[in-house]
C-alpha cells in the first residue's frame, strides 16, 4: 500500500507537491470537515434531508480532486461532496440538493461535475461514457469517478471497468474503501484480497493507497490522471480509508461495529498528520488554525444562507430536469396538477 506521510506526520518518501499547495489542500480539508459537520447539525435541526457524512475521508477526496484539471469530469456519489466542491461544484448547490431542492442538481455549465449518484455503481458507466466521448472528440479531458467498496460488487462496476479497459478510455476509477457498505464489512463484500487487484480482470493497473494520506493519494491519482490524459487508458485506485461517522444520519453504526475500531481510525485522522507535517516546517500554529477554521465556518455558513434563501420550488418543478421533451404520460400528469392547482386557488 502506497504511503508517503505516516499517521504521525513523518514523510517517508518524496513529497509530490510544495509547501504552498500543501497548505492550500490542508485548508480545503478543514473546509470540507466544517461543511460535513455543519450538514450533520442541519439535518438534526430538520433543515436537511438524510445526509451521508464523509468525516475521515477528507484526504482521499481533496487529494484526488487536486490532481485534476479544472475542466476534467467528475462523477461521484452521495458521500463525495468534498471532492465535488473541490472540482468547482458550488457549495450552496450541494446544500440545496440535500434540502431536497432539485436545483441543487444543476451546476453551472462550466462545471464538469455531475450531480451525486444515489444508485450505487450506476454512475460509473456514465463516467466512462463521458471520458469516451471526450476522446472521440479529440479532447484530452478525462473523467474520474468515485465509489465505495460496496459498489465494487455491482454489475455496473464490472461493465464500466471492462468497457474502459477494452477501449482504453481515459477514466480514473477511484474507490474509497472505507471499510463498510452500510452495515456490511469489507470482508463480507468480496473474497478477493484487495479491491485494487480487481484491476487485473480488466487489463488495467490497480493501485492501493493509504486513503488517509493526502500526499500519497495526490501522487497516485496524479499518475493515473496523466496516464489517462496521455491516452494510455484507465486505472483503478483503491484508497484505504474509514468512515468515522454513520452511513447516513439515519444510521446507528453502534449496532454493527466496534467502538475500538473507530478509535483506532481516529488516530489515523487524515488532517492531523498534515497538521504535524506543516507545524514541523513552521507553517502551522494554533492561531493560524483558529483563523483557518473561522474562515471555513464562514464559507460554509454563506453557502447554507444562499441555499436556504432560494425561493421554494413550485410543485410543478418536479417534472423538470428529466426529459428534453417529456413523454405523454408526464405531460398528462403535469396538466392534471395544473388543473388541481387552478381549482385550489380559484
Amino acid at each position, binding site marked *: 500500500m502506497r504511503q508517503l506521510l505516516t499517521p504521525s506526520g513523518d514523510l517517508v518518501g518524496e513529497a509530490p507537491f510544495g509547501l504552498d499547495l500543501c497548505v492550500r489542500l490542508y485548508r480545503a480539508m478543514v473546509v470540507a470537515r466544517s461543511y460535513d459537520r455543519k450538514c450533520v447539525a442541519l439535518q438534526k435541526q430538520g433543515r436537511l434531508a438524510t445526509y451521508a457524512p464523509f468525516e475521515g475521508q477528507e484526504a482521499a477526496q481533496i487529494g484526488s480532486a487536486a490532481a485534476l484539471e479544472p475542466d476534467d469530469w467528475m462523477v461521484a456519489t452521495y458521500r463525495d461532496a468534498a471532492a465535488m466542491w473541490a472540482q468547482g461544484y458550488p457549495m450552496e448547490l450541494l446544500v440545496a440538493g440535500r434540502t431536497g431542492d432539485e436545483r441543487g442538481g444543476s451546476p453551472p455549465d462550466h462545471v464538469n461535475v455531475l450531480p451525486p449518484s444515489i444508485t450505487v455503481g450506476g454512475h460509473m458507466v456514465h463516467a466512462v461514457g463521458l471520458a469516451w466521448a471526450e476522446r472521440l*472528440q479529440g479532447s484530452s479531458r478525462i473523467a474520474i469517478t468515485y465509489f465505495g467498496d460496496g459498489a465494487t460488487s*455491482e454489475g455496473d*462496476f464490472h461493465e464500466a471497468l471492462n468497457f474502459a479497459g477494452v477501449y482504453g478510455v481515459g477514466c480514473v476509477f477511484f474507490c474509497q474503501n472505507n471499510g463498510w457498505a452500510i452495515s456490511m464489512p469489507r470482508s463480507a463484500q*468480496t473474497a478477493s484480497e484487495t479491491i485494487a487487484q480487481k484491476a487485473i480482470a480488466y*487489463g488495467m493497473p490497480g493501485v492501493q493507497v493509504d486513503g488517509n494520506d493526502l500526499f500519497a493519494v495526490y501522487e497516485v491519482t496524479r499518475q493515473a490522471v496523466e496516464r489517462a490524459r496521455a491516452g494510455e487508458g484507465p486505472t483503478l485506485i483503491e484508497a484505504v480509508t474509514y468512515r468515522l461517522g454513520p452511513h447516513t444520519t439515519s444510521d446507528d453504526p453502534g449496532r454493527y461495529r466496534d467502538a475500538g475500531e473507530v478509535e483506532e481510525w481516529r488516530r489515523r485522522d487524515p488532517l492531523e498528520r498534515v497538521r504535524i507535517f506543516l507545524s514541523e516546517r513552521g507553517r502551522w500554529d494554533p492561531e493560524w488554525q483558529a483563523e483557518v477554521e473561522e474562515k471555513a465556518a464562514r464559507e460554509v455558513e454563506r453557502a447554507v444562507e444562499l441555499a436556504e434563501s432560494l425561493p421554494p420550488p413550485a410543485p410543478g418543478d418536479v417534472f423538470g430536469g428529466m426529459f428534453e421533451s417529456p413523454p405523454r404520460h408526464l405531460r398528462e400528469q403535469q396538466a392534471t396538477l395544473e388543473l388541481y392547482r387552478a381549482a385550489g386557488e380559484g
Partner: protein
Amino acid sequence: MSTEMRADPGLYDYALRPPRLPDPPKPENDHLPIDIEVRVGMYEMQQLIRQTEKRAHDLFLQNLVKGTTHLSLGMEAIATGFARAMRPDDYTFATYRGHAHTIARGADIKKVLAELLGRETGLLKGKGGSMHLTDVEHGMMGSYAIIGAHLCIANGAAWSSQMRGTGQVTVCFFGDGTTNIGAFHEAVNFAALWKLPVVFVCENNLYMEYTPIDLVTPVEHPAADRASAYGLEAVLIDGNDADEVYVTAEEAISRARRGEGPTLVEAVTYRQGGHSRADPGKYRPSEELQAWLDKDPIKLYHQRLLRLGVPESRLTEIAQDVARRVDEATEFAKASPRPGPEHLLTDVWADGGSEWRN
C-alpha cells in the same frame, strides 16, 4: 453536439485481425487415469450429441422447426466431460446453446427432437423449443436466453443445496461473451464469498455472436484472467479434450461437494458452425476455421481410443448404433402430435395452472 465523432480506425475491422489458432492437441492426456470404459462412454456421448445436433440442423433446414437454434458442434467434449463427472442429482444450468448439456445429462433424444419440432411428446410438451430445453428429472434445470442471468439462478440452486445439506453440486455453463456482463460479476463474487457448491464453466468459443471476444475483452482469457478478482484460482483448459475436461470437472465438483466453494473454469473451444441457424459464420478467417476443424474433439478422441487399444470396429459400431437411435428419434418426433389448445395455459406456474390473475 456538433463535433464529429472520430472512432479509432481499425478498431472494429475484423478482417485485419490475425486468426486465432488452437493449441496443439495433448497426446500426453492419453495417460490420464481414466477407466477405458468411461472413455468409451464419453466417445458414445460425443457421438450422440454430434449426430443429434446435425439432425436438428437438417430438420431446421427442412423448415420443420420454427424459431432458431444454437448448436454446439465442435464443443461436445465440454458437456460430455462435465456431465460424466456429475452425480445424477446434481444440477445443470445452460444457455440457449443447451442441446449438448441436455443430452449429456441423459435426456431422451426422442423427447429432445420432439421438443425442437414443437410436439406434445417433447421435453416441454413442444412449448419451449430449442432455446429452453429443460429436463428436471435428469437435473437439467434449464436453458436460458438472457446472457448472464442464469448464473444468479444457478447460485440460488447451489445455495438451496447448501442449506438443505444435500451435497448436490450445480454446474453452470456460459459463453465467453457472458463474462463481460454485470450479472457474471455479481454471481461469481457472491458464490466465492458464500462458498456455494457451484462450478462456473465458461465455454470460450472465441466469439460472442459475430464479435471476436478479444475485441471486447481487455484480457486474454475472459474467465481465467478474472478469477483473481474473486479470490479464485485461474483454471484454463483445453475444451476440445474430453479427458482433460473430465478430470477438471471431477476436481472442481468434489471441491464444491466438500464445501470448499466454487471454481471458475475456462474451457477453450470453437463452434464449428455459425452463432445460430441464420449465421453462416463468414466473419471468421478460413485458416482459423480449418485449424479448429482439424482439432475436432470427436476426431481426436477417436484417435486416442485407437491408441489406447479400443478396436476400430467397436467405435464404428457405436457410431452406427447412435445413427440408428437418432433416426428412430426423428421418426418418433415427426410422428408425434402437436400440442392441442388445451395446453395453451398449462405449465405457466408451479401448480400447473394459469390462474394468477385471480
